[in-house]
């Protein structure tokens, strides 16, 4: 069975992934028209390239339908409880850096730490009759972090996009979102809490522990390992 390698189907993440392989002497290229999701790997035998939406890659790794996949640490940790049972981190790739952070409105001059957020949440609940709302799409990661910090009286509200706008729109009081430069947060009058860094994420090569690693797949792994300086076995 061929080793199936899943990479993002478009955009900067795909370009950077292809660059990264090129630096290691492996050519990953798309075939057919720009719009066709097909491609090939030159320099390593028995490899099938699978182009996937970045958000689908964790799911495909977990199901064992791909052996290797490039995706963000944030997505793996959010979407896979007990992720380290399911995938192995082969190598962080050094691009796609993004931080999952908690941010509050600039005008909350009294709130600079998670400690303050907790105190503000208590008072907010008493004043408004409901729990302080934090908009995010990273429910698992944010909940774990706040629960570990012993924060109470908050609730998470789902926001799948334009999360920075939820405070202005009065659908949330604070947000937890991915940022790389912080520009969008600042432009929306939001400030990161000094200890509000939940996770530093970057594009990472993962190996699926649930995929079937037969002789062909392992020999393809060996081909990658030689070029990329990985261990002899995937995990």
């Amino acid at each position: 069975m061929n080793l199936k390698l899943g990479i993002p189907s478009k955009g900067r993440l795909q370009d950077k992934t292809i660059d990264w392989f090129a630096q290691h002497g492996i050519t990953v290229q798309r075939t057919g028209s720009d719009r066709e999701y097909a491609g090939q790997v030159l320099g390593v035998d028995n490899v099938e390239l699978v182009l996937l939406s970045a958000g689908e890659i964790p799911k495909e790794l977990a199901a064992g339908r791909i052996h290797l996949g490039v995706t963000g640490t944030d997505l793996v940790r959010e979407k896979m409880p007990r992720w380290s049972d399911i995938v192995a981190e082969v190598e962080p790739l050094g691009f796609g850096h993004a931080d999952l952070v908690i941010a509050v409105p600039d005008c909350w001059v009294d709130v600079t730490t998670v400690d303050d957020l907790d105190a503000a949440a208590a008072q907010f609940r008493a004043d408004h009759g409901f729990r302080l709302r934090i908009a995010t799409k990273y429910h698992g990661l944010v909940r774990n972090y706040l629960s570990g910090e012993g924060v109470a009286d908050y609730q998470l509200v789902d926001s799948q996009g334009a999360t920075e706008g939820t405070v202005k729109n009065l659908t949330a009081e604070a947000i937890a979102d991915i940022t790389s430069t912080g520009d969008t947060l600042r432009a929306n009058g939001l400030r990161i809490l000094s200890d509000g860094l939940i996770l530093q994420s970057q594009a990472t090569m993962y190996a699926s522990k649930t995929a079937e690693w037969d002789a062909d797949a392992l020999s393809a792994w060996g081909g990658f390992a030689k070029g990329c300086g990985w261990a002899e076995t995937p995990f």
Partner: protein
Amino acid sequence: MKNDRRARIKEVADRLSAGFVSAGALPVETDSLLPADVLLDLYGEDIRARAYVTHDPLQGEQMLRPDFTVPIVQRHMAEGAEPARYTYNGNVWRKQSGGRPAEYTQVGYELFDRTDPAGADAEVFAMFSGMLAGYPLKVTTGDMGVLLAAVDGLKTTDRRRAALRRHVWRPVRFVRLLERYGGMTPPPETRSALLAQVAELGAEKVLEQAGTPQGLRSEQEVLARIALLQQDSAAGPVSAEEVQMLEQVLALKDTSTAALDQLRDMAASFPALQAPADAMEDRLKAMAARRVDVDNLPFEVSFGRTSMEYYDGFVFGFTAPDRPDLPVVASGGRYDALTRVLGQGRSIAAVGGVIRPETLVAVQEGAV
């Protein structure tokens, strides 16, 4: 095989349930699908992580019953007369991390009676103790009321006492707060900087410079908190003696009789502990009258701190010491605080507990 096990679990559940009924409890049923808003408001995000939430286009968010306590308390508060004894026997659903089944049975007993708290605590404990006699289990008891009373007795600001009370169930933050209030850790730099700026320019000016107000949390709310931060920074630290006393209370762990003696000793220099010591003495007497061996009954002040936020008095738990892989077999306690939140001002005196028949069967299998 699997069916045999199910049948055995049902047999154990029914036997326990019959035991509660014959002790005078009224069997009650509740819906399996509950409106999520009440449970979410009560338990917060923690319950969302553990319970199954589903969405109905007309009814909004619904939750698969994560426990029986809330629907039973609600029903009792709406239509029940006291004293009341209820029992239930049915399934609950909770997400499990350790590969345990997410659907399991609970058999429980709830007692609502405000006339005799010590007697009610003793009645419930003796009932569980009796039902579980014969199984190789370890019992632990505790009393959240001791810690709450100790916090209430601190010579510090109302705000600080309230903040500590609020986090009694979250040990990490409780310790952090205590260290801050005790002056062991300095306030964060950002706070000192803010207070210096406010002292120089005035709070309104500082707020003005911070940018356009946005969101539901108003400028008045921010100003109110700044005022509180100023008051807090002016208040002196909680004394070293009191911090030490609190740490001693937290660490108290002995047999019940010996723990009561120690509590009495501490109360001599810290009178706030007098009331919980009296309450404990009453309870131990009531338990002894029900043939509970209080001289050998383990007691830990910190027991039950992390199990449920709303336990605010006597708590107990039965575990299988030979089977650390299994969840707690039975647990319970006093949860007047929960009824206060559910009743929005009204409250009832409530004590109860729950047994997991699945775990009991697993304990038996392990013992064979």
